[in-house]
């Protein structure tokens, strides 16, 4: 049973503020992913929780007890490093036993615990080897084993599979998830890879330039991004963003992409909602994911004529760049739906998948149609 709470964390490296007033409550057994670009403060936050980094302001509470003045060795937390950090001069067995030896357990207990962890991770056959003889995936299994063996209050992982190749990353991702379900310990996981974050997290914490942007389940973060940064950072390919003006015409809202000849059709409630939210034309950005851009090969009611520019065939689907005025909108279609570039097609924006942001602050108006 471990809850972790961060209250008003501030951290500077010299003149640079790397964490700004960070508040976060993590529930027992929760798998939290800190997501952000490099330098956003996510790793520093993780290291601060572990006690490897001091903080300038705020409280870190583990099970309600402030720990910011307690040494790393007394916080009872395990840390998995991106570099694996296995001791080259010890065997795999010794590496996993190392945290147990710190607690001065007796020999048979240590032997038993190490064997149990090795069995869970399926690395029993590697116990006598040296880390240098292992593959990247096995190294990380050992590193995770070393973290698990002590049954720590919480597991902290700093890009644990970032150094592996793509295929192995996918395998290890599944394995980490399986392990978390089985062991159920509070886990904080840092990554810059949004796919990893989406697939692993109970809740994702998106950070940017030291500031927490949004906390939510993968679905919330994906479907209801709090601002333009989150909207563009989460999801692949990235969300289309384009400045628009909205007008009302014959019971419809008309959303016009700058420089486009024809406007997209939206339900009439949009204008009222925008007004209520305090949005103004000239300061309005429309965001829509490629799957929210619907494409038709013939003219249809509510569809706008556009030109297919570039087609990226990805096997399971195609990504098509559509020219709308001076802007490009990327759409996702069935593979082979538009046979060749230059083809004239018709497009529509699914209002349910449209997001409206304040262009200057980037904040979402939170409008759901």
């Amino acid at each position: 049973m471990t809850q972790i709470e961060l209250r008003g964390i501030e951290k500077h490296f010299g003149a640079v503020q790397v964490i700004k007033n960070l508040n976060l409550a993590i529930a027992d057994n929760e798998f939290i992913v800190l997501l952000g670009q490099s330098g956003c403060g996510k790793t520093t936050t993780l290291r601060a929780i572990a006690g490897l980094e001091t903080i300038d302001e705020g409280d870190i509470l583990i099970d309600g007890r402030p720990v910011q003045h307690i040494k790393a060795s007394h916080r009872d937390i395990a840390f998995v490093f991106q570099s694996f950090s296995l001791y080259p001069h010890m065997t795999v067995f010794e590496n996993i036993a190392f945290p147990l030896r710190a607690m001065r357990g007796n020999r048979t207990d240590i032997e038993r615990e190490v064997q149990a962890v090795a069995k869970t991770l399926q690395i029993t056959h590697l116990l006598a080897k040296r880390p240098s003889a292992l593959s990247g995936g096995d190294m990380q299994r050992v590193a995770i084993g070393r973290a698990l063996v002590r049954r720590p209050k919480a597991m902290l992982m700093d890009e644990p599979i970032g150094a592996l190749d793509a295929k192995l990353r996918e395998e290890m991702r599944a394995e980490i998830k399986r392990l978390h379900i089985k062991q159920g310990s509070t886990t904080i996981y840092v990554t810059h890879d949004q796919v990893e974050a989406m697939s692993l997290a109970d809740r994702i914490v998106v950070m940017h330039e030291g500031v927490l942007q949004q906390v939510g389940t993968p679905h919330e973060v994906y479907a209801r991004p709090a601002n333009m940064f989150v909207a563009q950072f989460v999801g692949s390919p990235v969300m289309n963003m384009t400045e628009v003006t909205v007008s009302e015409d014959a019971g419809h809202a008309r959303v016009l992409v700058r420089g486009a000849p024809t406007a997209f059709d939206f339900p009439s409630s949009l204008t009222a909602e925008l007004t209520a939210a305090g949005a103004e034309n000239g300061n309005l950005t429309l965001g829509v994911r490629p799957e929210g851009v619907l494409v038709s090969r013939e003219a249809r009611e509510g569809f706008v004529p556009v030109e297919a520019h570039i087609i990226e065939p990805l096997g399971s689907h195609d990504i098509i760049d559509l020219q709308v005025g001076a802007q490009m909108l990327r759409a996702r279609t069935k593979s082979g739906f538009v046979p060749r570039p230059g083809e004239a097609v018709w497009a529509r924006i699914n209002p349910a998948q449209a997001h409206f942001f304040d262009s200057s602050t980037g904040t979402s108006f939170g409008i759901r149609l």
Partner: protein
Amino acid sequence: MAAVQTRSERALNRVAIAAVLVITLLFLAPIYWITSTAFKPRNLATTIPPTVIFEPEISPFVKLFTKRSQLRAAPEPEDYAAAPWWERLVFDGGEKVVRSGRGDVQLSGYPNRFMNSLIVAITSTVLAVSMGTFTAYGFSRFKMKGEADLLFFILSTRMLPPVVVAIPMFLMYRAVGLNDTHWGLIILYTAFNLSFSVWLMKGFIDEIPKEYEEAALVDGYTRLEAFFKIVLPEAATGIAATAVFCFITAWNEYAFALIMTNRRAQTAPPFIPSQVGSGLPDWTVIAAGTFLFLLPVAIFTFLLRNHLLRGMSFGAIRK
């Protein structure tokens, strides 16, 4: 690497091998000279041209370890018959072994000087390497004000020839009574080697990822435990390389040993040449002393050779 060598490449290769051979021979020549002289009969030691083929003798070593005096006449036949084999070798050379009133064999100054060399070199090496390792660890792992300046200051102690400070050092040592003491030389050699040790060890410790210790810290170890369990084993190669360099410097040091010591704490380097002047120089004995003096460094370096090779190329390969 190309599987097939061209003719010019092969020729170049041969030239390179020949050059390496010549250089190796050049380096080994003095060692051969010393070694062969150490086993020569005295009358063959100074022949021109040098004698290359001879029957090796052990007598120079017997003479090296014993106190001897010149024989005026041939020894009494019964004395000669009663003497052990090694004493006869001394008689054969026209000398006799000096015995005390009770008949105990008197040793020469050499074993004592050799022991002094061992004591001083080993102690100062242990001190310099251990202090250097701790200091380097501090510099490597903690941020401190004026770090670069401090490191430069440490290095600056090596920027002038040590002999420059010999006279002031001598006066200071005399004032505090460190003249001709083991500790005097140990402190001197430790101070002398410390800057070198700090800089070398800092390079080695910088190469050890910080995450190793951080992993140990979160796993429940203190920083000191992490240092001994993780940093030291990982730095073993660096420590070995640094120890060899420090040991060689302390072992071979001549100038300060000559000035600061004369009897009790005198090391072998100033002692061996001092034997040249007493009576007729016996080059075979001097060579025997030098030969034995070469052994510890050779053995030490041989034992640590793997570490040394790794130490030289440490950090050259990105892991």
